[in-house]
């Protein structure tokens, strides 16, 4: 790694240095293309965020792709019902790596006001790894923009090598997540233990 002081000194002289990792992450962080995909009222806020007033285009994330094959980011915007959950997991599996998930709103995080219902999944983090969670019901477009900025920060800090390298550069980590099946009352299995563990109770 080049010394920061030397680097800024070189920049003043018109010599720019970088690393492959930085260049790679910089490119990825500024072109996060989300999947066109909304489940409930949070999707309305997501649409508002992509329109002129809030202008998600400032962050390079305005290109909502209609196909999971072209998308980098899945914004789970809204209540995930148990009927919808396998389809969400399947869509996520169809996205090429590197891919990220933003869980938008109380419902996508935990089931929200519908948590005790018989038909609502208690959070999409049971089946797919969530990178950024936005609380709110629904979150403001500014909150979604903040989530995308948080995700950009996360992408910029990812290492290409080493033990904590991301999933898509680590062949040992599974890239595909099992799709749950419909059961008689609930999804089977009711969570993916490789992704989610029930919270420990503090008394």
């Amino acid at each position, binding site marked *: 790694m080049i010394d920061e002081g030397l680097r800024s000194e070189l920049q003043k002289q018109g010599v720019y240095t970088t690393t492959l990792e930085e260049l790679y992450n910089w490119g990825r962080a500024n072109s996060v293309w989300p999947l066109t995909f909304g489940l409930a009222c949070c999707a309305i806020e997501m649409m508002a965020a992509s329109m002129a007033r809030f202008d998600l285009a400032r962050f390079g994330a305005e290109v909502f792709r209609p196909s999971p094959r072209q998308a980098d980011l899945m914004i789970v915007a809204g209540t995930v019902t148990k009927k919808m959950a396998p389809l969400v997991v399947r869509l996520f599996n169809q996205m090429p790596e590197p891919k990220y998930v933003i869980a938008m709103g109380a419902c996508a995080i935990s089931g929200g006001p519908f948590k*005790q219902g018989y038909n609502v999944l208690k959070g999409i983090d049971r089946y797919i790894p969530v990178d950024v969670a936005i609380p709110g019901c629904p979150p403001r477009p500014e909150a979604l923009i903040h989530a995308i900025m948080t995700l950009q920060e996360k992408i910029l800090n990812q290492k290409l090598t080493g033990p904590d390298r991301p999933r898509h550069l680590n062949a040992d980590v599974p890239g595909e997540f099992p799709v749950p099946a*419909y059961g008689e009352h609930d999804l089977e299995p009711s969570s993916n233990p490789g992704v989610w563990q029930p*919270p420990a109770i503090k*008394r």
Partner: protein
Amino acid sequence: MPGARIEVLPNDCPAGERSLLVDTDHVFAAATFLRDDLQLRLDYCSNVSGVDWPDAEITTKTKVKKIVDGVEKEVEEVKKTVRPGFLEVVYHLYSMELKHGPVVLRQRTANRAEEVPAVSLTPLWRGCEFQEREVYDLYGIRLGGHPDLRRILMWDEFKGFPMRRDYVSPDDFEYEPTPHDEVLELAKKHYPPEAKA
């Protein structure tokens, strides 16, 4: 319609909107009449609902004259009868042509068994199709004559009818930091308070 049992049900609410109760054998004929009669022309079915009426105990007090200790007295007698439960399908009908409505049409099933039969009115009003599927999905009323009676909101493998009053949802309670009301009861059941040392 010979043999049809038609009843006008009163409604105690301020609007006092009464409804028409027809037995399941004749509801199709009655609905056809309501749609095709030139005075009524109820050509639009705006809403289909299901209602679950569980078994109810009805207490009626009647004053009876009785001889008590040689003196005639009025004594209140309390009678308790059990009204067997049933399921109900309610249709709200309007006329687009004559601009009147709604007429509330009800049909009742014989009991609350699973897949209890009733009559579909989708052949008369196509707009009923999805709403009757919803009634079937959530209440388990098998509406005979429906072109495509499947579950619509729940998945096909689902067992039970969740909008029935006696439906018990699967016990999948999870820890909540601030439980209250019904959730608190569940929380107490799942995480019994530790014995104080």
